[in-house]
């Protein structure tokens, strides 16, 4: 009797397990047209609330249900994991920097610009964010931005320094912030510049590119016709990197620990009054108004280097992902997101906007924000901003550049030109790989 019970239990549990295995066919969600549209955005908790509102009004207008998932940490890695199981979300809103990789892997689908309803309202510069190396479009722009310099105004005024307009003034201010006790607590515990300098996702290259361009240098030089040349070892680039090396190694005005900091870990150091100068996107303005205080910091255009005040200007795109059974709904959502209404809703997010600068030319930045700091950002975007070049996949270039810069700033060689030469060779090889060299 007892033996029979045992046998029955064993048989049943095996049967249950087998049944369980049978019922779960993976990768079903995207093939089923009745499921809601799965949408991912690269968002913190705060910005996710703004997206929720936008998606809600989208559903009210079109009747298309949205299954929304905000993800902040390791966004690209999670997309990758879903790609590995051939089950991507339907729509993804994330950095323009992901475009090359998405296209190379076949994760995003081509967009015919003229077929997008309302596409004509989107400014040309923004459209370029969605352009692949082959000249075709693979994403629809959603938001754009330019890097600006955030400075602790109260510190600067206490030390009696002007708003920096040149590299010399900026470096001088950074030194003063480090050495002259700008917060007046009697301790030598403040630093000049905050740098998200980790090599994770190539952050450091993101930060340094603006300064390299301002020095007249370049990581890759566009030669036209989809061909590029390596510019990171040019005399101008070397000089620009030398200046940064000096700030790290000799003047020591950078926030300690910068070289392992991601942006997530970096923001709090500005908020807690450790560092006083921060070259970053405008997306933190709302949060810093609350944590630092609106009157305590200022938003200025980047001070000029020898070759100008160029900064990195990128943004976020709407990617219609591959393998979706709901292409019509994907398109509907993208078309809604670029309407003036959705763009304005995105800008009005509290505390942080999800649309920084609108891609729709019918939206007035000044009227919507009513904030001179955002007018500064818009001004910088229209006159000084440029994106990373549209090589087939910029990610490996960004990664390698950030690794070399990280090494130069950490090991402080007497002269950085040798390391930049080695980097240039590696970048040249990568260009050959991607068939984008001359």
């Amino acid at each position, binding site marked *: 009797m007892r033996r029979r019970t045992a046998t029955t239990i064993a048989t049943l549990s095996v049967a249950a397990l087998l049944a369980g295995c049978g019922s779960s066919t993976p990768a079903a969600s995207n093939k089923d047209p009745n499921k809601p549209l799965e949408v991912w955005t690269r968002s913190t908790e705060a910005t996710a609330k703004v997206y929720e509102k936008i998606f809600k009004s989208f559903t009210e207008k079109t009747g298309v249900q949205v299954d929304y998932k905000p993800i902040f940490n390791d966004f690209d890695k999670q997309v990758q994991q879903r790609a590995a199981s051939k089950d991507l979300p339907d729509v993804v809103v994330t950095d323009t920097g992901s475009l090359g990789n998405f296209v190379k892997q076949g994760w995003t689908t081509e967009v015919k610009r003229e077929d997008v309803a309302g596409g004509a309202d989107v400014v040309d510069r923004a459209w370029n964010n969605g352009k692949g190396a082959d000249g075709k479009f693979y994403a629809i722009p959603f938001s754009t931005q330019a890097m600006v310099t955030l400075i602790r105004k109260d510190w600067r005024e206490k030390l009696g320094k002007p708003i920096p307009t040149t590299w010399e003034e900026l470096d001088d201010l950074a030194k003063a912030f480090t050495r002259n006790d700008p917060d007046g607590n009697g301790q030598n515990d403040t630093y000049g510049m905050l740098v998200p300098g980790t090599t994770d996702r190539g952050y450091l290259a993101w930060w340094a590119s603006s300064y390299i361009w301002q020095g007249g240098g370049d990581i890759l030089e566009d030669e036209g016709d989809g061909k590029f040349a390596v510019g990171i070892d040019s005399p101008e680039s070397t000089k620009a990197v030398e200046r940064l090396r000096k700030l790290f190694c000799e003047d020591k005005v950078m926030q300690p620990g910068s*070289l392992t900091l*991601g942006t997530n870990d970096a923001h709090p150091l500005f908020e807690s009054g450790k560092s006083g100068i921060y070259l970053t996107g405008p997306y933190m303005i709302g949060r810093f108004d609350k944590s630092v205080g609106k009157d305590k910091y200022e938003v200025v255009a980047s001070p000029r280097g020898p070759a100008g005040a160029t900064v990195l200007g990128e943004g976020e795109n709407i990617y219609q992902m591959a393998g979706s059974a709901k292409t019509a709904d994907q398109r509907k959502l993208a078309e809604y997101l670029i309407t003036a209404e959705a763009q304005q809703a995105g800008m009005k997010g509290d505390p942080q906007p999800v649309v920084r600068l609108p891609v729709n030319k019918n939206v007035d930045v000044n009227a919507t924000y009513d904030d001179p700091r955002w007018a500064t950002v818009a001004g910088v975007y229209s006159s000084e901003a440029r994106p990373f070049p549209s090589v087939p996949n910029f990610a490996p270039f960004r990664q390698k550049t950030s690794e070399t810069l990280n090494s130069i700033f950490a090991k402080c060689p007497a002269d950085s030109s040798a390391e930049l030469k080695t980097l240039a060779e590696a970048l040249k090889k990568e260009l050959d790989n991607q068939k984008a060299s001359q």
Partner: protein
Amino acid sequence: MRRRRRRRLTGATSKGPAWVPWLFLLPAALIFLVFKFIPMAEGIRLSLFEVRPFLGDIYVGFENYATILQDEKFLTASWHTIVLAGGQTIGAMVIGFLLALLLEGHTKSLWFVRSAVFLPVVAATAVIGEIWRLFFYPAPEGFLNELISWVGLGPWEYIHDTDTSLVSVMFVGIWKHAPYDMVLILAGLAGIDRQQYEAAAIDGASTWQRIRSVTLPALRPVITILLTLAAIRGLRVFTEVYVLTGGGPAGSTDVWMTRVYTTAFEQSEAGLASAGSVLLFLVTLVLTVSVQWYRRRREAR
């Protein structure tokens, strides 16, 4: 006599069909198959391909392995891994042994102290990493720097300087793993016959002589197990490095697993990453088997 008793303990009898025990094993075997063996086989398969899920994989044979074995970054990373694994293993064992000697006994208060000391093992590695990141804050106002300033040292940059970063990561590893080693060594110590100590004491042996001639030889089996476990753990080290430094600065703490991770998720080279994982698996396998083989041979002698 001994054999019959063991049989009664497990309750097995010669009655009943032979497949019943297999039936009981089947659920576990199936779960292992689905969640362990199939993914492992898939990993080995992918290591021979350039992986592109939406465009179709391309067969490249052993090219991925060749790429990795020639990749300077992987070679540096494997050197870091060996240094880190070695340092952490030895460090944790020495500290664990000292802790075990200090905390051996049956007193109630000792039980409490031992639990407190054991805490780092239970805490999540990611949390430990974040906390130590704070401790290691490289400016004079950082926690550790404030401590060492009392004795006139510092400020040091710990994980933020390429010269000290690997040692600092190693230190955190030792801090986390030493209590684990301590517990196993304590169990080993409890198995030593007290009379041996007493006999040694009567013969006039000093404390050091007693440790060397009585304690250490008696702990040999425990030490072998600890060495094996620690070596495997050391080779696969990932979380603490990833959270503390992400492999930086300047790649000075990059280990094999962070390299594999970067390759897979930053560079989207799943095939290369699979090859890296398979290589790590092979090294671990060879290492474990040779330690076992060495131990068997010694025991047989």
